[in-house]
């Protein structure tokens, strides 16, 4: 191949690429990159969806910056939306209304930008779940998990700064909550909000500052981390699901050029199409209904965008009256505890790969993914985490649940408070049992084959159902997984057992004590032999 690339290129493309190559030696990189193999599975495209949403956000966002004025100067609205005519508002709000009503294609661009932002964070979330439940974060990919986590947090920050920009009623209410949360921080809180807002809330600086964050600082950091994230994907090679012929030392799939690039390129336009369809049919963030920000009104049903919902939910679920006065300060535990819970939750997400690696003592490289059932403890922890998040998330819409399901608000809140504690425990137990049961089923299938439904009467009068052995391809998937055993508690070289080692052994036992061992070839051979007799 390389010999073809270096000489006698004809046609424009050939000559142009030759010209480029002679000056940049890019052919090496193209060859290396183009021959990267990507396995084909739908769940491997979720990260790509996030990437494409980001590109859509960049494109539509650039358009919006041409017309948006990040200023809180008071103006009188004179645009074409009748119910706001003659109303005083900030230039930010007024220019956003002008984009929506007086700029050709402006409303579509705003809606594309906002829907793509919702999709961006959702795709990241789903991608993270895929990576978590398949164990793709294991060595050597722990660092890439951390980078991905940073991307997730940055995406939420981008979202929050973004929907706060138009300076409408809803965004102002959201900023007021942030202001309240910062104010609750002991000693320095008040100073920080005055610094953030340039004086007493809402001040006249915050929109300009958020704008700088939203269009300059955060996207720049995001872009750097996206590049890092993708570089690591290339360096590590892609993971793959267990299957016939797939091992820790190969990658089975399509090369990037031409197959995968064509698919991925086409997929970008599909994602863009879905976003454009949503944006052209469905209203998002109708700031003209919310009206300009004014600190006095708060609308019923005021919620943040979905990805901040879990934080709002935590504030709604904390029991009231948790305040103490100490050293002349009010300690608002009803705000500090939710903040702490959120930080601990996020920290746990960030640290999970490192915690699992420490507990299991697994130092091997893993390029084959786990089927979720084959890691019951991890899958159960994941289910518990998802439940915890989902309860907080649901709590953010407690009032809407109350009105739409005709139940009382207090009933919804109390139920969710209980679920927040009990839900994860139940989810953990149930998921672990389900995983183990599925593993047992797999084991039976691998050993005895599947039930054919053919009932045979034996000469002695006994009835048996004939089982048929799986073929080798089907069995592969059922038997090729890691058999993790609890760590043995052994003294270190100094002959001592430290507290840390004890904790680790205990955690390891908790992780692996309930397990179903994979069928070994000898076991299978023995079984075959027995069934023949």
């Amino acid at each position: 191949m390389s010999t073809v690339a270096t000489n006698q290129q004809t046609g424009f493309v050939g000559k142009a690429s030759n010209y480029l190559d002679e000056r940049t030696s890019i052919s090496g990189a193209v060859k290396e990159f183009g021959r990267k193999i990507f396995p084909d599975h739908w769940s491997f495209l979720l990260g790509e969806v996030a990437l494409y949403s980001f590109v859509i956000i960049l494109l539509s966002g650039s358009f919006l910056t041409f017309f948006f004025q990040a200023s809180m100067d008071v103006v009188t609205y004179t645009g074409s939306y009748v119910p706001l005519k003659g109303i005083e508002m900030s230039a930010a709000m007024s220019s956003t209304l002008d984009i929506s009503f007086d700029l050709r294609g402006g409303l579509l661009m705003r809606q594309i930008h906002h829907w793509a932002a919702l999709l961006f964070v959702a795709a990241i979330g789903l991608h993270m779940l895929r990576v978590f439940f398949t164990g793709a974060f294991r060595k050597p990919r722990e660092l890439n998990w951390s980078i991905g986590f940073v991307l997730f947090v940055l995406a939420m920050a981008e979202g929050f700064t973004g929907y706060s920009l138009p300076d409408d009623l809803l965004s102002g209410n959201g900023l007021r909550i942030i202001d309240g949360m910062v104010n609750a921080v002991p000693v320095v809180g008040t100073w920080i909000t005055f610094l953030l807002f340039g004086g007493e809330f809402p001040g006249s600086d915050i929109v300009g500052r958020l704008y700088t964050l939203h269009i300059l600082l955060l996207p720049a950091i995001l872009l750097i981390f996206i590049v890092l994230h993708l570089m690591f994907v290339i360096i590590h090679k892609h993971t793959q699901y267990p299957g016939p012929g797939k091992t820790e030392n190969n990658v089975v799939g399509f090369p990037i050029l031409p197959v995968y690039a064509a698919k991925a390129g086409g997929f970008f336009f599909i994602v863009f199409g879905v976003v454009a369809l949503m944006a052209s049919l469905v209203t998002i963030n109708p700031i003209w209904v919310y009206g300009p920000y004014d600190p006095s009104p708060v609308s019923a049903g005021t919620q943040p965008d979905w990805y901040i919902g879990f934080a709002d939910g935590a504030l709604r679920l904390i029991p009231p009256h948790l305040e103490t006065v100490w050293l002349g300060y009010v300690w608002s535990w009803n705000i500090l505890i939710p903040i702490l819970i959120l930080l601990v939750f996020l920290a746990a997400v960030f640290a999970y790969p490192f915690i699992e690696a420490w507990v299991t003592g697994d130092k091997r490289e893993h390029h084959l993914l786990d089927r979720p059932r084959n890691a019951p403890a991890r899958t159960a922890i994941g289910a518990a985490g998802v439940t915890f998040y989902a309860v907080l998330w649901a709590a953010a819409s407690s009032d809407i649940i109350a009105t739409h399901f005709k139940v009382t608000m207090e009933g919804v809140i109390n139920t969710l408070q209980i679920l927040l504690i009990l839900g994860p425990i139940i989810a953990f137990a149930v998921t672990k049992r389900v995983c183990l049961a599925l593993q047992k089923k797999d084991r039976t299938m691998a050993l005895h084959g599947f039930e054919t439904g053919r009932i045979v009467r034996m000469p002695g009068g006994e009835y048996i159902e004939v089982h048929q052995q799986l073929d080798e391809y089907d069995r592969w998937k059922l038997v090729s997984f890691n058999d993790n055993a609890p760590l043995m508690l052994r003294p270190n070289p100094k002959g001592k057992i430290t507290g840390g080692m004890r904790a680790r052994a205990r955690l390891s036992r908790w992780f692996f004590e309930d397990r179903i061992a994979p069928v070994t070839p000898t076991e299978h051979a023995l079984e075959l032999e027995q069934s023949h007799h």
Partner: protein
Amino acid sequence: MRNKTSRSARRSGRRGPLASIVLIALGLAATGGAYVAFSSVSATASIDLSSPAVIDEGSKLFAANCATCHGMQAQGTANGPSLIGVGSAAVDFQVGTGRMPMQAQGPQALKKPVQFTAEQTSALAAYVSSLAPGPSIPTQTQLENGNVSNGGELFRINCAMCHNVAGAGGALTEGKFAPVLKGVAAVHVYEAMLTGPQNMPVFNDLNLTPDEKKDIIAYLAYNEANPSPGGLELGSLGPVSEGLFLWIFGLGSIVALTVWITAKSN
């Protein structure tokens, strides 16, 4: 089917093939038209609320339908408040929206199909307003030609915290709620502000002047007549319904497409 009809028409030679369809259409139009004409007549029927005959009729209706809870002299009982001084506006709102007579005791009276004709409602209103002076039913001129943008601002400041900024309704404590404002007649909106039904506070004429009430009504009417320029409104519930839509339809279709793209051809 059509063949059969035309064949039978040829045989009898009396009716065209489409005659029965035309007949049904005519019949439906006549019934519907008559209904519309009747209901619009009864809605605009003007009745003198101070005439003794009407008050007397109202008093009988009251004794038969309301007195169980509100008392024979509307003085109130343990099950229902006194109606002395609530005025005709309160009666017209509560009975005219079907909230009264109440179906069952609960956190608040629910809107349901109206139980009385317009004449009966007016008679009840006449009786209750004859007991003591109180807020009266607004005239048509009190409901028209408000200032939409002023109404919007007043709505956001005074009404949105319970009814939602788009009038989509909102939750209150203990199972009570502020209802959706879409589809509520202007006269009922005015009466609600004037009398503060259920858990709603009273917005008297010193709080919101009659002109300001008119503006709020104009704003609601504008929103109802002009659907969202951005497309489907998703119930005007804001980020919650947007998030649900994104996760179910947006991400749902994206995942379906990823499955399609990576599917192996058979």
